[in-house]
């Protein structure tokens, strides 16, 4: 593959850090994880937290509806022109890993329409523990699991849990109600991920999305350095 194309015209591939006009493109962060783990809620919280300091946009990958995009629109976390939904043909992991073309077009169109952008969040449709984002689509990926999905998920591992740049264990406020052992989840995650970071988060808690937002800011600082 010719990543450093020399032909004229729009970019052929989009892992390139620069846009056709030579400017640096936005940092792209993917959020994946099982159905109902809180990906959309985390995206909404990140938008509220970061929208005053950054120019950002969101791509959602709904499996059969536009519900995630519509949730974000209803919550008014961003102006509607900054939210795009991609249709995935019953295969959410295909659209973020094996055939990323529709998502690449969505991120490029957002940059063209409302750019310049600092950050684009790409939210996967709810999927299984093996779903990861292609490096051709995102620069960093967050995997979101929750305590109610079973406290053995970090131990089971899988590509999402073990390789994501950030693992969020979400809904920690529910742990006592569903009998999940937070300490065990944290220890298992640590064992699976070595030095890769883990955030235990409750969006209903006082600190909310702050720790994840700080991680995003650090990634962005590294991207623009």
């Amino acid at each position: 593959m010719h990543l450093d194309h020399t032909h004229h015209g729009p970019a052929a591939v989009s892992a390139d850090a620069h846009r056709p006009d030579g400017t640096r493109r936005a940092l792209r962060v993917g959020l994946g994880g099982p159905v109902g783990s809180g990906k959309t809620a985390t995206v909404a919280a990140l938008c509220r937290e970061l929208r005053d300091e950054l120019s950002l946009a969101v791509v959602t990958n709904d499996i059969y509806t536009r519900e995630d995009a519509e949730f974000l629109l209803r919550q008014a976390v961003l102006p509607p022109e900054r939210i795009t939904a991609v249709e995935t043909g019953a295969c959410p992991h295909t659209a973020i890993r094996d055939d990323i073309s529709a998502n690449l077009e969505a991120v490029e169109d957002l940059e063209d329409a409302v750019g310049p952008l600092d950050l684009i969040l790409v939210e996967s449709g709810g999927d299984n523990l093996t779903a990861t984002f292609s490096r051709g689509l995102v620069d960093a990926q967050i995997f979101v699991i929750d305590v109610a999905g079973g406290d053995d998920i970090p131990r089971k591992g899988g590509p999402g849990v073990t390789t994501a740049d950030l693992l969020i264990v979400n809904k920690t406020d529910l742990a006592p109600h569903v009998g999940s052992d937070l300490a065990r989840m944290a220890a298992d995650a640590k064992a699976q991920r070595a030095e890769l970071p883990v955030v235990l988060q409750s969006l209903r808690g006082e600190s909310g999305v702050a720790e994840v937002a700080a991680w995003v800011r650090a990634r962005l600082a590294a991207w623009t350095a």
Partner: protein
Amino acid sequence: MTHAALLVLADGRFPAGGHAHSGGAEAAVKAGRITCAADLEDFCRGRLHTAGLVAGALAAAAALGLDPRELDAAADARTPSPALRLAARRLGRQLLRAARASWPCAELDELARWFPKGAHQPVVLGLTARAAGLGAPDAAYCALYESVSGPATATVRLLSLDPFDATGVLARLAPELDEVARAAVEAAGAAAGEGPQALPAASGPLLEIMAEAHAAWPARLFAS
């Protein structure tokens, strides 16, 4: 020139966006017109001789080197449904990205400049085949096979149809696909002399009508 490039281009895993489209199968399944492998075969046969033939001839003509802008206009004229025109351009744009990464050349770059939001997929497919060193028949075969393999794989997901039955449908259609490919290449040859008006203009009215309805559904698995 390598003929094996045809396998790369025709591979269902070639990352050009096709997985999110059902070729009208989702609307037909919901309407109760596809309920089993026999229905799928009838549906695919209808597509092969209408939308498939047109796509095959457009792809073959592009592979022969006819002006892609004229071919794109011809494709527009042969696609009454705005939803299908939009889907064809989206898929064309996605294919062009994969094509330029796989077989980079000035002709594909030029196409991207002319159509930043995408040309009709069969036109891009024909130029991609050309860039890969393939001929007009190869381009026609790719377009025709896609016209039936898309609905077949989509139906496996939509109906939980036995995947062996769906593949059997495609295998049974193969001899007919040969015939339609010959007709498509012949038409492309005629268009090289007489212009794009010589290209076939077959259409499945129900495919076009259902595509418009499908595009307005609030919940669906496939983009078209």
